[in-house]
């Protein structure tokens, strides 16, 4: 196999070298490997690791360490927030609101709520992919309990107006959950200033390990949620299980590094995006699915006249996504892109290029050239238009 060129940072990222270097000190026999719930010396060392990490993550969100619940990742955080809040508040009302352009972890949680008898309003995006505050305001009812809207879309990079959405929700006494898996550590977030109640994050999108995430829970009156599972009483019973202190410490360090390099990263990604867009600008027949105002690390483009799977193969050794990563193993055209108005052909021919801290100009140039060549090749062998 040729050495892969990885442009799929929106799916997952490699672990930062500084974290890899620190891990033995957290995992190994002479590290802080103990159970942080144990009262003995080794347990307290592990607890200290967790406390530091909680401060690091909290300071990136603008919250208190005690407002974080550690989970296995954003999928679990999304479900804990959505199922947990809706089920807890079901006695007050059973209307909940989201968008079809959310991540599967959110849309599938809402489909579960539908099966449980909740009434879900699916708000369509404006043509730019954003939720209009007017549409949201109209959707809120007296029995609305929960709204869930993502910050940055994982397929297109569209950024929602979370502060605006949050005010809308707070005005009406509705809980707001935000899936910030793609924005945490990359765009400023301030849950102290934005009236958000629940917010999901995950380490593996910011050069931390896979398998650890968190849910911010404001804890203000009325924001309580039901746990997904039960056990040893850890984390106030909201999310039990032996705390994986080394993973949490890694998440904390990843958050601290992300905060420190947020502006640098953003500039880097903006420059890469411009370079890539410039390089593919003259390719005919492309539809650009990522708005200029979107997160610069994601460029989604589609060609409706080529087969998506063949395009992926022709792009090798480029590692990019067709549809979202979780969809790529199946073969459905992305529901998110369909909701943005693409037809099936355009959606299945979409490629998401996503860049990261390690991405170089050379890789961008290689990707653009490869994309150009792959499209040319597939178009060349395709039959003419008259079918």
């Amino acid at each position: 196999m040729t050495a892969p060129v990885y442009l799929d940072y929106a799916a997952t990222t490699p672990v930062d070298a500084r974290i890899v270097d620190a891990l033995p000190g957290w995992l190994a026999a002479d590290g802080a490997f103990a159970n942080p719930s144990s009262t003995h010396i080794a347990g307290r060392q592990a607890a200290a690791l967790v406390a530091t990490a909680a401060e690091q993550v909290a300071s990136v969100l603008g919250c208190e360490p005690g407002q974080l619940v550690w989970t296995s990742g954003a999928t679990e955080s999304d479900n804990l927030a959505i199922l947990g809040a809706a089920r807890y508040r079901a006695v007050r009302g059973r209307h909940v609101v989201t968008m079809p352009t959310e991540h599967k972890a959110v849309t599938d949680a809402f489909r579960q709520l539908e099966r449980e008898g909740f009434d879900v309003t699916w708000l369509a995006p404006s043509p730019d992919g954003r939720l209009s505050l007017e549409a949201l305001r109209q959707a809120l009812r007296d029995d609305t309990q929960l709204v869930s809207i993502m910050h940055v879309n994982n397929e297109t990079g569209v950024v929602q107006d979370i502060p605006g959405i949050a005010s809308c929700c707070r005005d009406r006494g509705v809980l707001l959950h935000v899936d910030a898996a793609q924005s945490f550590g990359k765009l400023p977030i301030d849950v102290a200033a934005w009236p958000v109640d629940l917010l999901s994050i995950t380490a593996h999108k910011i050069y931390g390990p896979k398998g650890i995430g968190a849910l911010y829970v404001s804890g203000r009156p009325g924001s309580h949620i039901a746990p997904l599972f039960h056990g040893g009483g850890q984390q106030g019973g909201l999310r039990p299980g032996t705390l994986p202190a080394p993973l949490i410490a890694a998440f904390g360090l990843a958050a601290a590094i992300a905060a420190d390099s947020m502006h640098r990263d953003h500039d880097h990604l903006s420059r890469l995006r411009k370079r890539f867009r410039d390089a593919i600008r003259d390719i005919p027949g492309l539809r650009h699915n990522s708005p200029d105002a979107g997160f610069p690390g994601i460029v989604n483009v589609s060609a409706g006249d080529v087969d998506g799977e063949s395009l992926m193969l022709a792009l090798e050794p480029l590692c990019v996504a067709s549809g979202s990563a979780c969809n790529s193993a199946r073969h459905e055209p992305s529901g998110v892109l369909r909701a943005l108005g693409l037809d099936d052909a355009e959606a299945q021919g979409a490629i998401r290029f996503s860049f990261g801290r390690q991405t170089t100009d050379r890789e961008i140039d290689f990707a653009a050239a490869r994309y150009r060549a792959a499209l040319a090749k597939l178009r060349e062998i395709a039959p003419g238009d008259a079918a």
Partner: protein
Amino acid sequence: MVTDPYSAEVRRLFAAPAHAGTLPGAETVRAVAQGVDVELSLARDGDRVSALRFRARGCPHFLAAAEALCAGYEGRPVAELRAFRAAELVERLPVPIDKTGRILVLEDAVRSLGA
């Protein structure tokens, strides 16, 4: 989770589709179904296949199958081409079970050549 869905054979055929193209003035058929689209052109030399070309849009297995078909029947009797069965390529490449319908589209196209 995915292991490599493409055999070395599929990769080879996909990477170098030497028989992609159209034979000007030759007998040409087109089949569009199941999300794939294929055009075959056949040039004969008596009852032999002197040249066979394809154009196609579809997944890698489908493109590889079209290439394998064209490469495999050039120089052979047209009657043998007519007797082409999708199953033979499905097994050889191989093509995953959920895609065999597409290879049948190729079989249909062959069947309608000179029909």
